[in-house]
């Protein structure tokens, strides 16, 4: 094992720690919203600072590794992939934070469960969490097929988001007194859909690292 190997193992380890933290942030944001749990929402705000600290640390480590060890080929691709995944994870953390902020600020005690149901909100966010978990294991096991399977999840998230426009518009017509929370839920659905986009980016970065293939901007046909 070379010295660079040791450094890359340490770097990956930090990334996985951050990743677990971000997964738990999104899970907690789901609970916060489904149960309207303001305590859970505060917890997310607190842990967000830890996510930010990881982001800065991993950025700096990547810079140092490039400057000191001049990685090439797969070592370079891994370093660059980690640098980008780091940014994606931090953004995902921000979305969890956004959901928490809504729960904390909302004057109501709950969101109408009927509204959550028609929007398929729980399915949506559970899928996003699964994508995030799958992406993590696909890097842990260097399994590109698993990474590619993430793209089909993302299609589901896009559909739910797309359909929610009409559903929410109709809901508002029927329940004009709930217009505020319906609009807020719409923006939350948009956030969860964005989490899916970032997971797809991460999957592309994993394929780039392992297969040296660029899937970015390659449309819907993504294979390895």
């Amino acid at each position, binding site marked *: 094992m070379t010295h660079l190997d040791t450094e890359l193992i340490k770097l990956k380890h930090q990334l996985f720690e951050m990743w677990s933290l971000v997964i738990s942030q999104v899970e907690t944001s789901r609970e916060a919203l489904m149960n309207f749990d303001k305590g859970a929402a505060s917890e997310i705000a607190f842990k967000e600072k830890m996510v930010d600290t990881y982001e800065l640390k991993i950025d700096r480590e990547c810079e140092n590794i490039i*400057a000191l060890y001049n990685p090439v080929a797969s070592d370079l691709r891994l370093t660059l992939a980690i640098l980008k995944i780091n940014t994606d994870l931090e953004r995902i953390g921000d979305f969890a934070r956004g959901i928490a902020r809504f729960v904390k600020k909302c004057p109501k005690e709950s969101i109408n469960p009927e509204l959550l149901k028609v929007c398929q909100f729980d399915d949506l966010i559970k899928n996003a969490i699964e994508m995030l978990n799958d992406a993590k294991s696909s890097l842990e096991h260097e399994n590109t097929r698993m990474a590619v399977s993430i793209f089909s999840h993302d299609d589901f998230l896009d559909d739910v988001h797309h359909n929610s426009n009409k559903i929410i518009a109709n809901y508002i017509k029927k329940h004009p007194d709930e217009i505020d929370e319906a609009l807020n839920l719409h923006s939350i659905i948009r956030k969860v859909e964005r989490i899916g986009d970032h997971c797809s980016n991460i999957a592309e970065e994993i394929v780039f690292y392992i297969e040296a293939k660029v899937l970015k901007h390659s449309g819907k046909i993504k294979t390895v």
Partner: protein
Amino acid sequence: MAKIETLDANLFYGDFHALKNISMQMEENTVTALIGPSGCGKSTYLRLFNRMNDLIDSTRITGQILVDGEDIYRKNINVDELRIKVGMVFQKPNPFPKSIFENVAYGLRVNGEKNKSYIEDKVVQSLKQSALWNEVSDKLTKSAFELSGGQQQRLCIARALAISPSVILMDEPASALDPLSTAKIEELIHELKKEYTIVIVTHNMQQASRVSDYTAFFYLGELVEYGQTVEIFTKPKLKHTENYITGRFG
């Protein structure tokens, strides 16, 4: 206390002022790289620590040079003992025309060691430490000249280690070697710093960044910038250093 320290060190070759007021401290169990364009005084500075410059006529040294807090230029210092404590590896591998075993045993014998089993143990240990043992364990009696250049250099490192130094000076130890042998020497340096304090001169900037904890940039006999390697290679304080490490020099 620093392992090695210089205070306002100056060196003159006759009238030529080769080192100018160099003050630097090097901690134990670290690797310090000396970088800078050729002729800037790296080798001269390195040779201060085992008093090798003394072998050159008309050199004059001022200031203080301390190893383990001791002024190594004071009167009555035992230079042979100093050179046991401070070992050196040169640019070109320079094995003696002897067997592999005798090359490593050489320093022990010269220093009067007679105990056969001690010598054997020490030779084996040094060859293991220099990551050469697996390649030579079955041909210890063969001539050192039968080894490849990279192996010869590791043999010279084993020879330096055999007399139990605590400091190892390396003057461009890999510049005559192929990339694979170079990588082996670099890995070896990472291992050795656990037990030794290493000062290495290299004209290869990437090598300095890969192997060292601290980097000192010399220019025209002056110490321009000295700091943690990671700082020097990501955000050097001086433009001069930046220009040198990015290859935009002069």
